[in-house]
């Protein structure tokens, strides 16, 4: 039976209106033609190197982009179009954000009341049990954010999403600054939540961890997805992968030979014509520099390439 996706993003684009120099105005396209879906019970990782605009995806889904951003495309939550009113109503209730770092906690508010949030009645009892489940000591609630260790801060941030009981969680770079064990621990929590039927959008640059914990992986490059594949394809290696970039990523991993890919990811504002990956693609043909490929289905995944097989 075809399940209804929790989140469906169709051709999302995000453009910033910038003021260049004193008063000249300029549009900067940061996300283009991005499409993906998250089903209940699965972890979808959006993986890409830093500077690719991944974090903006989280803001776009939640409707929290800065005022000078213009979005295009459509997003659906449980089949309903996400308008800005809808986003406002769903934020913190159905869709929860697990932010990147401790700087997302109010420095002058103790952790306990802060995790409780502003909702009435206060979910204090629930929070206490979630803190316990995450292995946060009882005294944590009386600490200020600056006093938390990196791992504790991470768990407190995760706890806020659990307390909200949201069905869709967007975790924005949840692992940097953690030891491997802490990262594994955090991702295990996400796995458990997914097993309980929640959908998780995991935004990360740590491809290795994404392989290990996600169900599907969207390879993110220069503001768009180049390939969406099941994690199994990544575990199997380059032969089951579709896009040249995904293959290169696989080969760049330490355990797979550490072969670096030459060149740099293009910056927003300096995107090439045609396929965004073409300048670095070993297989590029003349058409790639002229036309922009769109996502197409292939072997149970999706790929944005004219010549992928």
């Amino acid at each position, binding site marked *: 039976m075809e399940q209804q996706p929790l989140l469906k993003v169709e051709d999302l684009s995000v453009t910033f209106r910038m003021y260049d*120099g004193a*008063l000249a105005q300029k549009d900067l396209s940061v996300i283009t033609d991005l499409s993906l879906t998250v089903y209940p019970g699965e972890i979808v990782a959006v993986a890409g190197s830093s500077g690719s605009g991944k974090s903006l995806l989280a803001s776009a889904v939640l409707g929290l982009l800065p005022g000078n951003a213009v979005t295009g495309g459509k997003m659906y939550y449980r089949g309903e179009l996400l308008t800005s009113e809808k986003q406002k109503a769903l934020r913190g209730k159905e869709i929860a954000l697990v932010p990147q770092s401790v700087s997302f906690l109010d420095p002058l508010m103790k952790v306990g009341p802060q995790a409780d949030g502003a909702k009435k009645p206060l979910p204090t009892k629930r929070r206490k049990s979630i803190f316990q489940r995450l292995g946060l000591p009882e005294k944590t609630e009386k600490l200020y954010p600056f006093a938390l260790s990196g791992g504790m801060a991470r768990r407190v941030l995760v706890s806020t999403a659990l307390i909200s009981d949201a069905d869709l969680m967007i975790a924005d770079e949840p692992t940097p600054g953690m030891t491997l064990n802490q990262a594994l621990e955090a991702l295990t929590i996400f796995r458990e939540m997914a097993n309980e039927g929640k959908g998780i959008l995991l935004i990360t640059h740590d491809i290795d961890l994404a392989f290990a914990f996600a169900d599907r992986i969207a390879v993110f490059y220069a503001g768009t997805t180049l390939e969406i594949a099941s994690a199994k394809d990544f575990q199997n290696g380059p032969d089951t992968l579709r896009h040249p970039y995904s293959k290169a990523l696989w080969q760049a991993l330490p355990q797979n030979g550490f072969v670096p890919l030459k060149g740099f990811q293009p910056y927003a504002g300096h995107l090439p014509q045609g396929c965004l990956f073409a300048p670095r693609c070993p297989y590029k043909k003349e058409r790639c520099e002229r036309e922009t490929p769109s996502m197409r289905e292939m072997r149970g995944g999706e790929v944005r390439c004219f010549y992928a097989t």
Partner: protein
Amino acid sequence: MKLFRWKNRRTRTLCYMTLLGLLLLAAYLFGLLIPEEAVATDFMNAKLPPSLEHPFGTDSLGRDLFFRTLKGLSVSITVGIFASLISAVIAVLVGVAAAVGSKWLDNAICFVIDLFMGVPHTVLVLLISFALGRGLKGLLVGIAVTHWTGLARVIRGEVLTLRNHPFVAVSRRLGKSSGWILRHHLLPHLLPQFLVGLILMFPHAILHEASISFLGYGLSPEQPAIGIILSESMKYLSAGLWWPAVFPGLTLVLIVLLVDKFGDNLKRILDPYSAQE
């Protein structure tokens, strides 16, 4: 198109500034050129309310308040310009000395700045003016000596940042002398700070001048300073003579606002990034 719009904005700011500058200059020159007869005592026409003939009315001695105010303004502007000029020069010297001098000197200068900030300015100006036997000299020195601290801190910070800038380090590695670095790297950066600081200090200086004159220090009672006119107006306030209090004060506020505006625009032109809001 974009370039054109930017230019347009810049031109507009420049025009605006020229206009403001001319207005200030006109007020100043006009005040200087008014003959003594225009503000002569005339008991026949004492305490007249504003009319076409006397737009600001006349005071208790029958002097025309409009001309008196303008004369007062040019006195205020003179005092303001000199006081803020001295103050800004002190600020640059002290700020640069603190930044490039030894740690000991820097500490000493910061202590002195704290010292100046530790006594209310009005009290300090009173004290200095008193020490110099009141009068114009005391007023000038008092205002000049109390206004440099803020700008000195800015300059000190600026020089400290510049000193650690790569291009200064490169110049030094290339064997350029300190004097060369000062001329080619520091001064071009400090000049805008100095100008903006100077102009934004000016309204404060005028306001302080008026306040101190109002308190009876500074300029002598015959002089037509705004502070003195307002101080005189107090005696007749309860008798209902409102115009000697209202108009000269309004004119003073107007000038202060104009100069402030001028300084803001100058800041925008010299440093378009910091002023972008």
